[in-house]
């Protein structure tokens, strides 16, 4: 937990006190020297670099950085040092075991609400997927909402993966809507229905705001209860939740794969000019790259899709991200829900594409940025984390090799300057079964 977090609202502090997890360590000032430093902003790795973290924040990183007197110094021995990985969007913290329904808070198909749903209270900071992702260098995530019965997935949150009780750093950070095949099914079976439902919802929210409802930072707490037209389709709770969206205070993440769906999503701004859109998925983004670039709307693209998995992904190609980036689209790797720790492998593949004739990938520097600073910027946190630029959170990862290479692994992780434990059930099982046969006692005594 960082100094910054200690200043959080009293409710958060109380919550921390009421739980049984040990009080986390405070951030320790430190310098990592003799490192191949990756700033994460798309610049080239700096050999022989130093990273200085004080008060939980990066003070300096690069070559020729002086080590302050009296701080913990870690000699990286030439190893790679990077900002922590940023994954957007994912279901980290919502799920223990995906197929064990009762442990899976990522699905709420029978909930009476949709847009109003707020995932923040469901985040479990000690769920194994968080521990395992942390041990792989993932330090921050935008946790996407849910499978609801409606086109809206509710409100996602920004979390850190630190070993403390306070995972959520920004609740209700964005709203999520599906405008593709899934949304079509939920809206009644057709894209036609999706757009009608979406536009109606935004209009109802705008109308509710005009009547004075849903004011305040947290629309859930809206206490004004103005009259609404009798034919309102949304619950008041859902309509209030969409006021920040329609007024541009809360970004709207739009899941869209087909190029035509992406163009239609961008066109929403004609009627709802305040919308702050982010496109998620975008398998055919390269076919709408010009429009995306012109709109300035960023993309969290599923990496490496190259199969016509559905009729909205016929144009899928691994060159998708590279082509969008080349066209000037702000694009990060994202929207992989199962294993956030695969982000470096995916990024490495985009580097590999640069050697394939006819393919478009990303340079190493841009590929790393696409899993660190770029997703941080897209989720509105670029000034807080995602790179080792001064003032960013002290989220630092030390690797035993090139972080985008298959055989590399993580040796140390810091979040907000706090060194993190890297043990989890997997490491404990590994240690127990290094030799599979029993010794003097059964395996159950080996812990």
């Amino acid at each position: 937990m960082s100094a910054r977090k200690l200043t959080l609202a009293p409710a958060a502090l109380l919550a921390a006190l009421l739980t049984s997890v040990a009080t986390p360590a405070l951030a320790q000032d430190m310098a990592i020297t003799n490192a191949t430093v990756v700033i994460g902003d798309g610049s080239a790795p700096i050999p022989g670099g130093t990273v200085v973290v004080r008060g939980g924040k990066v003070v300096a990183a690069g070559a020729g950085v002086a080590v302050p007197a009296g701080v913990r110094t870690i000699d990286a021995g030439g190893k790679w040092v990077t900002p922590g990985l940023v994954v957007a969007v994912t279901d980290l913290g919502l799920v223990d075991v995906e197929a064990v329904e009762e442990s899976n808070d990522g699905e709420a198909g029978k909930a009476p609400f949709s847009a109003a749903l707020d995932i923040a209270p469901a985040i479990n900071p000690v769920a194994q997927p968080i521990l395992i992702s942390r041990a792989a260098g993932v330090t921050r995530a935008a946790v996407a909402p849910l499978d609801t019965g409606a086109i809206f997935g509710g409100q996602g949150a920004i979390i850190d993966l630190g070993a403390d009780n306070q995972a959520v750093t920004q609740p209700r950070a964005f709203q999520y809507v599906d405008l593709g095949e899934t949304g079509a099914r939920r809206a009644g079976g057709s894209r036609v229905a999706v757009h009608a439902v979406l536009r109606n919802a935004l209009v109802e929210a705008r109308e509710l705001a005009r009547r004075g409802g849903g004011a305040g930072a947290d629309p859930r707490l809206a206490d004004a209860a103005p009259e609404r037209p009798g034919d309102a389709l949304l619950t008041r709770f859902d309509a209030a939740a969409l006021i920040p969206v329609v007024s541009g205070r809360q970004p709207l993440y739009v899941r869209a794969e087909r190029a035509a769906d992406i163009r239609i999503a961008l066109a929403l701004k004609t009627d709802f000019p305040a919308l702050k859109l982010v496109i998620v998925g975008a398998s055919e983004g390269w076919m709408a790259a010009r429009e995306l670039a012109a709109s300035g709307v960023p993309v969290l693209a599923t990496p490496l899709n190259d199969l016509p998995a559905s009729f909205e992904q016929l144009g899928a190609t691994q060159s998708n991200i590279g082509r969008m980036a080349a066209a000037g689209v702000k694009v990060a790797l994202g929207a992989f829900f199962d294993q956030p720790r695969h982000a470096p492998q995916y990024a490495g593949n985009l580097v590999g594409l640069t050697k394939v004739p006819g393919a478009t990938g990303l340079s190493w520097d841009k590929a790393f940025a696409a899993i660190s600073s770029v997703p941080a910027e897209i989720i509105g946190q670029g000034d807080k984390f995602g790179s080792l630029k001064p003032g960013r959170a002290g989220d630092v990862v030390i690797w035993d090799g090139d972080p985008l290479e298959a055989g590399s692994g993580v040796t140390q992780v810091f979040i907000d300057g706090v060194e993190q434990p890297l043990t989890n059930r997997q490491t404990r099982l590994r240690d127990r079964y290094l030799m599979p046969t029993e010794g003097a006692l059964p395996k159950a005594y080996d812990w």
Partner: protein
Amino acid sequence: MMKKLHRPLLAAAACALALGATVPGIAKAKDAKKEPSAAAKAARDFNKDPYPSSYKPYPGAATALVGATVFDGKGGRIERGTLLFRDGKLVALGGADLAIPEGFQRIDATGKFVTPGIIDAHSHLGDYPSPSVQAHSDGNEATAPTTPEVWAEHSVWPQDPGFTRALANGGVTALHVLPGSANLMGGRGVTLKNVPARSVQGMKFPAAPYTLKMACGENPKRVYGGKGRAPSTRMGNFAYNRATWLKAQDYRRKRDEGKLESRDLAMETLVGVLDGEILVQNHCYRADEMALVLDMAKEFGYKVSAFHHAVEAYKIGDMLKANDTCSAVWADWWGFKMEAYDAIPENAGLLYKAGACVVIHSDDENGIQRLNQEAAKAQGDARRAGVDISDAEVVRWLTLNPAKAVGIDKLTGSLDAGKAADVVLWNGNPLSNYSRPEKVWVDGALLFDAGNPKHRPVTDFELGQPGEGDVK
């Protein structure tokens, strides 16, 4: 013991299939004094290869790949190697001093890497093709807990675009397509050459043995328990399996005694297993269940060729080694279902350390494009756990070991002279996220060339669609 008993029979079965001939019942002399009925003979002497492979290798130039680092698929590594192939077969593998006979086109592969064609021991391509719409869901005959009578090949759609991605991005030259895991006995698997064809017969790997897909654990009990019928528990799974094996033993006895009255497709598959002609491929996650399955195999007299997924194989590496059973595993899939909760990324490495057979498999239309990277990840995780494994040994997890698991190791999987010229030229070390196939040959025919935009397969489905012929 089991191994000795089964291997020669397998070879015989493979030959018989190759010739399109029938295999007579093993014990037909037993009832010599009483001639079996015509029906019994028909049920005994049926054609075991009624949908024979029509695959013929495509033409290829006699080729010398010169200067590459060569991984031979069986644990060897040669720097600046020379690999010769002609007429679809490997001719020789040697160092820089290996003479290149006249008539071989020389390809300078300096700085590049060569491996045998990659083999995926667990794929559903064709059975669950792209696009993955309901109309394409052909991998699970989930209408009865045991369906050994169904054959995966009868569901394979040769126009699945997934085959082409596996070739171009994964260097996959052969793959074993299985029925799904809804059923305890899901049906026969089929091994394919990764060569586009109009029919599945045009892809079938000549002389590859049939396999039987079996499944432990959550899936069968969930699917059938959910229908309010057996099996609904793990003990129900075993009871149902054992009862079915008893029937198979009975059928086999009747066959040998000339007492069968008609053919039974389900029993023919199971008796094929008991005869050692059909290889059991068992989907199983948990160590305790695998240990039970190994005993069930002993109880009924068959062998488990490979456990698939086997996320807890690391807990019983010693048992798997003793049973000569391979484990076809992911590098690091974890936690998506209860029986995957104990998966660890060191699974492959710890199995290797225990001396057991490791296969890296995909079970996935995307993963099959990166089996090389999955193996490299497992290698890295093993190294961090103190288990150092050479690149050449790790390449075996993608080549000779999967070939062994599905019974084609005499035909492909390593760069031995006389084997099929299934070869990948990589633009860098295949155990890297940065490397891709540059050229892929199947039986000596060049079927993918990254340097030639037209020399890549485009399926019927993708013709006239967005992205047709793209690099993908």
